Protein backbone atom coordinates (compact mmCIF):
# COMPACT_ATOMS: atom_id res chain seq x y z
CA UNK A 1 0.00 0.00 0.00
CA UNK A 2 2.24 2.79 -1.27
CA UNK A 3 -0.68 5.23 -1.20
CA UNK A 4 -1.12 4.70 2.54
CA UNK A 5 2.52 5.53 3.16
CA UNK A 6 2.37 8.68 1.04
CA UNK A 7 -0.75 9.78 2.90
CA UNK A 8 0.91 9.06 6.24
CA UNK A 9 3.94 11.19 5.38
CA UNK A 10 1.72 13.99 4.12
CA UNK A 11 -0.26 14.12 7.36
CA UNK A 12 2.88 13.67 9.49
CA UNK A 13 4.60 16.56 7.71
CA UNK A 14 1.53 18.73 8.24
CA UNK A 15 1.45 17.79 11.95
CA UNK A 16 5.13 18.59 12.49
CA UNK A 17 4.89 21.83 10.48
CA UNK A 18 1.86 23.05 12.41
CA UNK A 19 3.52 22.17 15.74
CA UNK A 20 6.63 24.13 14.71
CA UNK A 21 4.50 27.08 13.65
CA UNK A 22 2.68 26.88 16.96
CA UNK A 23 5.82 27.27 19.06
CA UNK A 24 7.34 29.98 16.87
CA UNK A 25 4.43 32.40 16.31
CA UNK A 26 4.51 35.41 18.58
CA UNK A 27 0.74 35.90 18.46
CA UNK A 28 -0.91 33.35 20.79
CA UNK A 29 -4.16 33.34 18.79
CA UNK A 30 -2.27 32.10 15.73
CA UNK A 31 -0.64 29.52 17.98
CA UNK A 32 -4.06 28.21 18.99
CA UNK A 33 -5.15 27.96 15.35
CA UNK A 34 -2.02 26.01 14.41
CA UNK A 35 -2.51 23.73 17.39
CA UNK A 36 -6.04 22.98 16.14
CA UNK A 37 -4.57 22.00 12.76
CA UNK A 38 -2.17 19.71 14.62
CA UNK A 39 -5.05 18.11 16.55
CA UNK A 40 -6.93 17.45 13.32
CA UNK A 41 -3.83 15.77 11.88
CA UNK A 42 -3.66 13.56 14.96
CA UNK A 43 -7.34 12.70 14.53
CA UNK A 44 -6.56 11.54 10.97
CA UNK A 45 -3.72 9.44 12.41
CA UNK A 46 -6.16 7.83 14.84
CA UNK A 47 -8.47 7.03 11.93
CA UNK A 48 -5.57 5.41 10.08
CA UNK A 49 -4.97 3.35 13.22
CA UNK A 50 -8.64 2.24 13.15
CA UNK A 51 -9.44 4.05 16.41
CA UNK A 52 -12.65 5.76 15.31
CA UNK A 53 -13.98 6.61 18.75
CA UNK A 54 -10.72 8.24 19.87
CA UNK A 55 -10.58 10.22 16.61
CA UNK A 56 -14.06 11.61 17.16
CA UNK A 57 -13.48 12.62 20.78
CA UNK A 58 -10.12 14.09 19.77
CA UNK A 59 -11.99 16.50 17.49
CA UNK A 60 -14.92 17.08 19.86
CA UNK A 61 -13.03 17.45 23.13
CA UNK A 62 -9.61 18.77 22.10
CA UNK A 63 -10.11 20.75 18.90
CA UNK A 64 -13.61 21.75 19.96
CA UNK A 65 -13.89 22.30 23.69
CA UNK A 66 -10.37 22.77 25.05
CA UNK A 67 -9.12 25.03 22.27
CA UNK A 68 -12.24 27.20 22.46
CA UNK A 69 -11.50 27.54 26.18
CA UNK A 70 -7.96 28.71 25.34
CA UNK A 71 -9.23 31.25 22.80
CA UNK A 72 -11.84 32.44 25.28
CA UNK A 73 -9.24 33.06 28.00
CA UNK A 74 -7.00 34.86 25.51
CA UNK A 75 -9.82 37.19 24.54
CA UNK A 76 -10.66 37.69 28.22
CA UNK A 77 -7.12 38.65 29.21
CA UNK A 78 -6.69 41.05 26.27
CA UNK A 79 -2.90 40.79 26.34
CA UNK A 80 -1.31 44.07 25.37
CA UNK A 81 2.00 44.47 23.61
CA UNK A 82 3.44 41.14 22.55
CA UNK A 83 6.92 42.65 22.37
CA UNK A 84 7.02 42.87 26.14
CA UNK A 85 7.09 39.08 26.25
CA UNK A 86 10.07 38.92 23.91
CA UNK A 87 13.05 36.88 24.95
CA UNK A 88 15.74 38.87 26.72
CA UNK A 89 18.30 36.25 27.62
CA UNK A 90 19.30 34.16 24.64
CA UNK A 91 21.50 31.60 26.39
CA UNK A 92 18.35 30.03 27.78
CA UNK A 93 17.07 29.39 24.26
CA UNK A 94 20.30 27.64 23.32
CA UNK A 95 20.06 25.42 26.37
CA UNK A 96 16.46 24.63 25.42
CA UNK A 97 17.45 23.52 21.93
CA UNK A 98 20.27 21.36 23.29
CA UNK A 99 17.88 19.77 25.79
CA UNK A 100 15.33 19.19 23.02
CA UNK A 101 17.96 17.45 20.89
CA UNK A 102 18.94 15.30 23.87
CA UNK A 103 15.32 14.28 24.48
CA UNK A 104 14.76 13.45 20.81
CA UNK A 105 17.95 11.39 20.51
CA UNK A 106 17.09 9.59 23.74
CA UNK A 107 13.66 8.59 22.39
CA UNK A 108 15.11 7.59 19.01
CA UNK A 109 17.72 5.39 20.70
CA UNK A 110 14.91 3.85 22.70
CA UNK A 111 13.00 3.14 19.51
CA UNK A 112 15.93 1.40 17.90
CA UNK A 113 16.29 -1.12 20.69
CA UNK A 114 15.06 -4.59 19.74
CA UNK A 115 11.36 -4.57 20.56
CA UNK A 116 10.51 -8.27 20.76
CA UNK A 117 7.83 -8.93 18.17
CA UNK A 118 8.42 -6.48 15.34
CA UNK A 119 4.92 -5.11 14.82
CA UNK A 120 4.80 -4.06 11.18
CA UNK A 121 1.09 -4.20 10.46
CA UNK A 122 -2.16 -3.50 12.26
CA UNK A 123 -3.49 -6.27 14.43
CA UNK A 124 -6.34 -8.13 12.66
CA UNK A 125 -8.61 -7.34 15.59
CA UNK A 126 -7.92 -3.61 15.29
CA UNK A 127 -10.70 -2.90 12.77
CA UNK A 128 -13.58 -3.56 15.15
CA UNK A 129 -11.64 -2.75 18.32
CA UNK A 130 -11.84 1.03 17.98
CA UNK A 131 -15.61 1.15 17.68
CA UNK A 132 -17.81 2.83 20.28
CA UNK A 133 -19.42 -0.52 21.06
CA UNK A 134 -16.16 -2.26 21.91
CA UNK A 135 -14.75 0.64 23.94
CA UNK A 136 -18.07 1.20 25.71
CA UNK A 137 -18.32 -2.45 26.70
CA UNK A 138 -14.82 -2.37 28.13
CA UNK A 139 -15.39 0.99 29.82
CA UNK A 140 -18.58 -0.02 31.59
CA UNK A 141 -17.43 -3.43 32.75
CA UNK A 142 -13.72 -3.70 33.36
CA UNK A 143 -13.03 0.00 33.84
CA UNK A 144 -16.20 1.05 35.63
CA UNK A 145 -14.47 2.29 38.78
CA UNK A 146 -11.92 4.54 36.99
CA UNK A 147 -14.78 5.86 34.86
CA UNK A 148 -16.73 6.90 37.94
CA UNK A 149 -13.61 8.37 39.56
CA UNK A 150 -13.18 10.47 36.40
CA UNK A 151 -16.59 12.02 37.01
CA UNK A 152 -15.51 12.97 40.54
CA UNK A 153 -12.32 14.46 39.10
CA UNK A 154 -14.31 16.58 36.66
CA UNK A 155 -16.62 17.74 39.46
CA UNK A 156 -13.62 18.71 41.60
CA UNK A 157 -12.11 20.56 38.64
CA UNK A 158 -15.37 22.43 38.10
CA UNK A 159 -15.57 23.57 41.73
CA UNK A 160 -11.86 24.45 41.72
CA UNK A 161 -12.17 26.59 38.60
CA UNK A 162 -15.08 28.54 40.05
CA UNK A 163 -13.19 29.16 43.29
CA UNK A 164 -9.97 30.16 41.48
CA UNK A 165 -11.57 32.50 38.98
CA UNK A 166 -13.80 34.27 41.48
CA UNK A 167 -13.17 37.96 41.82
CA UNK A 168 -12.39 38.30 45.54
CA UNK A 169 -10.46 35.12 46.16
CA UNK A 170 -9.97 34.56 49.87
Amino acid at each position, binding site marked *: *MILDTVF*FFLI*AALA*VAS*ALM*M*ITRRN*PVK*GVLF*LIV*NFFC*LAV*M*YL*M*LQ*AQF*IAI*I*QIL*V*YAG*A*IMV*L*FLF*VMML*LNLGDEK*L*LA*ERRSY*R*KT*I*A*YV*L*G*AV*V*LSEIVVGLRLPSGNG*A*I*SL*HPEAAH*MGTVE*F*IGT*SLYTEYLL*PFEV*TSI*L*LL*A*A*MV*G*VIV*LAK*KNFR
Partner: protein
Amino acid sequence: MIDIPLNYYLSLSAILFTIGVVGVLTRRNAIIVFMCVELMLNSVNLTLVAFSSYLGNINGQILVFFVMAVAAAEAAIGLAIIIALFRNKQTVNIDEINIMKW
Protein backbone atom coordinates in the same frame (compact mmCIF):
# COMPACT_ATOMS: atom_id res chain seq x y z
CA MET B 1 -0.64 -6.45 2.69
CA ILE B 2 2.11 -4.23 4.06
CA ASP B 3 1.04 -1.53 6.45
CA ILE B 4 2.88 1.43 7.84
CA PRO B 5 5.39 0.15 10.43
CA LEU B 6 4.73 0.94 14.08
CA ASN B 7 8.04 2.78 14.29
CA TYR B 8 6.76 5.53 11.99
CA TYR B 9 4.01 6.42 14.41
CA LEU B 10 6.38 6.25 17.37
CA SER B 11 8.91 8.49 15.60
CA LEU B 12 6.23 11.06 14.74
CA SER B 13 5.14 11.01 18.36
CA ALA B 14 8.73 11.51 19.54
CA ILE B 15 9.18 14.48 17.20
CA LEU B 16 5.95 16.12 18.37
CA PHE B 17 6.90 15.52 22.01
CA THR B 18 10.29 17.15 21.45
CA ILE B 19 8.69 20.15 19.78
CA GLY B 20 6.47 20.45 22.84
CA VAL B 21 9.48 20.28 25.18
CA VAL B 22 11.36 22.96 23.23
CA GLY B 23 8.23 25.12 23.25
CA VAL B 24 7.86 24.83 27.02
CA LEU B 25 11.52 25.74 27.52
CA THR B 26 11.69 28.66 25.08
CA ARG B 27 8.38 30.47 25.26
CA ARG B 28 7.63 33.01 27.98
CA ASN B 29 3.89 33.41 27.50
CA ALA B 30 2.18 31.19 30.08
CA ILE B 31 -0.72 30.37 27.74
CA ILE B 32 1.63 29.18 24.99
CA VAL B 33 3.60 27.10 27.51
CA PHE B 34 0.30 25.54 28.45
CA MET B 35 -0.51 24.79 24.82
CA CYS B 36 2.86 23.07 24.46
CA VAL B 37 1.95 20.84 27.40
CA GLU B 38 -1.24 19.90 25.56
CA LEU B 39 0.87 19.06 22.50
CA MET B 40 3.04 16.74 24.60
CA LEU B 41 -0.04 15.02 26.03
CA ASN B 42 -1.33 14.48 22.51
CA SER B 43 1.91 12.97 21.27
CA VAL B 44 1.79 10.46 24.11
CA ASN B 45 -1.82 9.69 23.18
CA LEU B 46 -0.65 8.90 19.65
CA THR B 47 1.86 6.42 21.08
CA LEU B 48 -0.82 4.74 23.18
CA VAL B 49 -3.27 4.42 20.29
CA ALA B 50 -0.55 3.11 17.96
CA PHE B 51 0.49 0.41 20.41
CA SER B 52 -3.14 -0.43 21.09
CA SER B 53 -3.92 -0.97 17.41
CA TYR B 54 -0.73 -2.84 16.57
CA LEU B 55 -0.86 -5.19 19.54
CA GLY B 56 -4.64 -5.74 19.43
CA ASN B 57 -5.13 -4.61 23.02
CA ILE B 58 -7.95 -2.23 23.91
CA ASN B 59 -6.36 -0.92 27.14
CA GLY B 60 -4.34 1.72 25.30
CA GLN B 61 -7.42 3.37 23.88
CA ILE B 62 -9.17 3.27 27.26
CA LEU B 63 -6.14 4.99 28.78
CA VAL B 64 -6.30 7.67 26.05
CA PHE B 65 -9.92 8.28 27.03
CA PHE B 66 -8.89 8.91 30.64
CA VAL B 67 -5.93 11.05 29.57
CA MET B 68 -8.33 13.24 27.61
CA ALA B 69 -10.64 13.60 30.62
CA VAL B 70 -7.68 14.58 32.83
CA ALA B 71 -6.41 16.97 30.14
CA ALA B 72 -9.78 18.70 30.02
CA ALA B 73 -9.78 19.15 33.81
CA GLU B 74 -6.15 20.29 33.72
CA ALA B 75 -6.81 22.85 30.97
CA ALA B 76 -9.73 24.35 32.89
CA ILE B 77 -7.78 24.58 36.16
CA GLY B 78 -4.64 25.91 34.49
CA LEU B 79 -6.48 28.62 32.63
CA ALA B 80 -8.28 29.63 35.83
CA ILE B 81 -4.89 29.92 37.55
CA ILE B 82 -3.61 32.05 34.66
CA ILE B 83 -6.66 34.32 34.98
CA ALA B 84 -6.08 34.67 38.72
CA LEU B 85 -2.38 35.44 38.13
CA PHE B 86 -3.21 38.01 35.47
CA ARG B 87 -5.68 39.66 37.79
CA ASN B 88 -3.05 40.01 40.52
CA LYS B 89 0.12 40.75 38.53
CA GLN B 90 -1.16 42.09 35.18
CA THR B 91 1.15 39.78 33.26
CA VAL B 92 1.35 36.25 31.86
CA ASN B 93 5.13 36.36 31.44
CA ILE B 94 6.46 33.36 33.36
CA ASP B 95 9.74 35.19 34.05
CA GLU B 96 7.86 37.63 36.25
CA ILE B 97 5.79 34.97 38.00
CA ASN B 98 8.55 33.80 40.33
CA ILE B 99 7.05 34.36 43.76
CA MET B 100 7.33 30.66 44.63
CA LYS B 101 10.84 30.35 43.26
CA TRP B 102 13.43 29.65 45.89
